[in-house]
């Protein structure tokens, strides 16, 4: 059945998010102290599958193992340590208030709700802010080498969207160090026998029996063997879907398949259109480009963003005098300056480039200049703060940022949308939990810098291990065998798809399709979206998808390491997701956070929210046409206001 582009059906609203009521500050404590528990002897009889080994999955698998559950963890990489959390540079937020600069759990809560443009849930966000404090303690105890001051205490820095200094960091490699902490905790449990790790395995379907998530179908990427793993609960920690744009700051392997398969099995997908475009990435250098590299937001602490004041000024940056430069973020947003939230910085960058004032090849870039910082702080200090980032920039571009300003441009970085979960991180399929970037919670329509690491570890170390017990207290669930018809059906669906991809034997590579899909998404569902553009995108996606299934060429066989086959399956799912993203973006005629509808802006070109009609989470049910379930957002403690950073 075909539908008109953007067509959807309105379903039942989501009435209950399972959040405790009562005072906001007491909700998490109350949930923890009243939730049902599983006694230690019974935990040994309960099987939990964790898909993904990044900050969320790694920390969850380790912690569930410590609690005594029988855990099996899966990742597509050759080691759990390679999960893409490792690439996070800047830092992790926590409301420690070690600086005595007025920070508190309430303030982090407020900043996150406001930063998310009032499209997230108060209960979840408050808990995140609350738990942030414990995360830092936990990581330090594990030996994470955070940056320290001479007195031996932890150093912090400021990040976008905040006026306090609450971001803890380990040079420009905070994600790496936090992930290695979680990885080491995970390997400790492997050694203890509570966690079994399956590397080079990809989840290709979710097994649902009698309405409960009971296992997964996986493909061994080395041998091609397709097997099933059955359990009492499944935790998805499979990350975000930024690679639907082909070019993004995500690792090449990042994909939506695990989430999408769960969605096809009945899990609602929330706010798919909410994607984050990060303002400071190295610009595209040519058609060969395979990925984009982020330059940490922390650089905006000391770097100043500018373009020539006049369009068409082709002088070298050093030849442009001070009064002929436009430090456009400082000019438009004096209160926050270069540290405005990411969505705002990205759009402002696009605006000056659209204005013809962009720099570098194609005019798609702006300067990030450290000349002032070098003069004020000296080279040694700048090097200590950002040395590895400067080196990375030079390696990629061949330019030395100590001599000439960096050139940066926005790129897809993070996806706020994801599988819908309630307060306890349960999806709409009982027994299926979703954590980290894979779920939609906490960040609303825009994520603040240094909050992804916070959320991944909050979910994995502290939230999920405390909420999963209430579900597992009803287990173990009836024993299943691989011969159960629902299990056989799921496994057969996977082997059929593998066979189908291998037998098309067309004339176009998987990558060529992915690249083309990415261009459509970037053009029409990127930084600025319009009704006409989104409708056009849906038509283009559909026809490209049809072509994919007729013309894709996947060499080799299914019984070996076959990287083309892996990518083909992922791109096939990206096609379906891409259409849903456009439907979501089309139906939300307001602008909010990272979702900018050109039709809905203030006279100054800022995002114009429409709280009267859109103060809800859009949770989509898989169907043709898709069914929209609204979760109305109630603000009891915060008052939605037009965001102002000026």
């Amino acid at each position: 059945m075909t539908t008109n582009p953007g067509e959807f059906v309105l379903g039942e609203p989501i009435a209950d998010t399972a959040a405790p009521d009562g005072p906001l500050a007491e909700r998490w404590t109350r949930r923890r102290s009243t939730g049902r528990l599983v006694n230690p002897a019974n935990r040994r009889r309960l099987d939990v599958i964790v898909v993904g080994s990044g900050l969320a999955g790694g920390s969850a698998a380790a912690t569930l193992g410590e609690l005594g559950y029988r855990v099996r963890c899966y990742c597509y990489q050759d080691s759990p340590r390679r999960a893409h959390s490792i690439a996070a540079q800047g830092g992790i937020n926590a409301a420690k208030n070690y600086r005595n600069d007025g920070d508190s759990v309430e303030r982090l809560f407020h900043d996150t709700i406001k930063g998310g443009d009032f499209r997230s849930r108060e209960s979840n966000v408050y808990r995140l802010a609350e738990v942030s404090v414990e995360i830092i303690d936990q990581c330090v105890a594990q030996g994470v080498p955070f940056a320290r001051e001479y007195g031996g205490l932890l150093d912090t820095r400021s990040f976008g969207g905040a006026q306090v200094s609450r971001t803890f960091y380990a040079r420009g490699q905070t994600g790496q160090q936090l992930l290695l902490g979680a990885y080491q905790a995970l390997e400790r449990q492997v050694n203890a026998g509570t966690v079994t790790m399956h590397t080079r395995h990809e989840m290709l379907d979710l097994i649902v029996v009698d309405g409960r998530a009971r296992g997964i179908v996986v493909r061994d990427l080395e041998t091609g063997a397709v097997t099933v793993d059955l359990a009492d609960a499944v935790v998805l920690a499979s990350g975000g879907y930024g690679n639907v744009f082909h070019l993004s700051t995500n690792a090449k392997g990042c994909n939506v398949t695990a989430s999408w398969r769960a969605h096809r099995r009945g899990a609602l997908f929330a706010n798919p259109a909410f994607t984050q475009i990060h303002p400071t990435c190295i610009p595209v250098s040519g058609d060969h480009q395979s990925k984009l590299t982020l330059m940490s937001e922390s650089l905006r602490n000391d770097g100043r963003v500018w373009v020539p004041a006049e369009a068409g000024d082709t002088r070298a940056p050093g030849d442009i005098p001070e009064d002929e430069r436009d430090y456009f973020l400082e000019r438009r947003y004096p209160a926050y300056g270069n540290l405005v939230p990411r969505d705002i910085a990205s759009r402002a960058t696009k605006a000056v480039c659209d204005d013809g004032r962009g720099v570098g090849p194609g005019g798609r870039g702006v300067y990030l200049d450290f000349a002032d910082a070098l003069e004020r702080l000296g080279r040694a200090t700048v090097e200590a703060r950002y040395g590895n980032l400067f080196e990375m920039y030079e390696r990629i571009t061949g330019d030395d940022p100590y001599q000439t300003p960096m050139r940066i441009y926005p790129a897809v970085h993070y996806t706020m949308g994801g599988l819908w979960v309630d307060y306890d991180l349960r999806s709409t399929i009982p027994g299926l939990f979703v954590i980290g970037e894979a779920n939609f919670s906490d960040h609303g329509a825009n994520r603040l810098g240094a909050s992804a690491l916070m959320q991944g570890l909050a979910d994995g170390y502290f939230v999920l291990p405390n909420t999963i017990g209430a579900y597992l207290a009803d287990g173990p669930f009836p024993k299943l065998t691989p011969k159960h018809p629902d299990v056989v059906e799921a496994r057969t669906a996977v082997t059929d798809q593998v066979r189908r991809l291998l037998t098309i034997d067309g004339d176009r590579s998987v990558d060529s399709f992915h690249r083309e899909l990415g261009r459509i998404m970037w053009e029409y569902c990127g930084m600025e979206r319009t009704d006409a553009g989104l409708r056009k995108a849906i038509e283009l996606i559909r026809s490209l998808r049809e072509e994919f299934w007729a013309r894709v060429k996947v060499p080799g066989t299914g019984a070996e390491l076959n990287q083309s086959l892996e990518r083909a399956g992922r791109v096939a799912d990206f096609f379906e997701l891409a259409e849903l993203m456009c439907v979501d973006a089309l139906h939300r005629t307001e602008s909010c956070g990272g979702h900018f509808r050109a039709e809905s802006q203030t006279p100054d070109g800022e995002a114009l929210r429409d709280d009267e009609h859109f103060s809800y989470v859009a949770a989509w049910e898989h169907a043709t046409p898709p069914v929209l379930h609204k979760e109305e957002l109630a603000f009891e403690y915060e008052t939605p206001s037009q965001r102002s950073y000026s």
Partner: protein
Amino acid sequence: MKLTLRIWRQKDRDARGRMVAYDVDGLSADMSFLEVLDVLNEQLTTAGDEPVAFDHDCREGICGACGMVINGVAHGPQKLTTACQLHMRHFKDGDTIDVEPWRARAFPVVKDLVVDRSAFDRIIQAGGYISAPTGSAPDAHATPVPKVDADAAFEAAACIGCGACVAACPNGSAMLFTAAKVAHLGTLPQGQPERPSRATSMLAAHDEAGFGGCTNTGECTAVCPKGIPLTVIGSLNHDVLGAAVRGR
């Protein structure tokens, strides 16, 4: 820019491999080395041949997935740089480049340039951690850590586990990898209680995996993309010796 790539092709773990030459044209100096392999694979795929298998993921030099011996040097000619961050401006038009997988007894070749590095995970399992179960931590400021120690720990912790050190070592030793973790954790106050047992257990796992011994040739640190210093091996020796003296 045009290049001839001579690449190790091997169907699976048991097959015999061989070097196969491919011409690749239309390259730009701004490409990364892996993007050149992407171009070659696109070319092979449309011609109906099997693309070259290679591990890669983040492509920004931090995940440690990529790794190949380029013209006889692990990760290629540029210092402190992984293969994914190596750009073609370091090569000349018309060059012939040899590309091989890591070669070491403890890293069996899986296919083409892909090797099995699971032995690294087993070394970490043997003790490359601080036992701090979730929820048990005191306040982060309970124990100040001198900045010099924190910085030294960070320097050792920067290891990305790529395995270049093993590929470069004439003995196929993973001592730099193992010692980096021992030094990272052993430099911090939180790592002291398990310090003696950590070093001996990790070293035993290292030997059991089939890695060779260290003879201080220093090839490992020369190719390490993160510049892990050879001195970490001194820390490992110190801890192993200390454990032996204490009988632990």
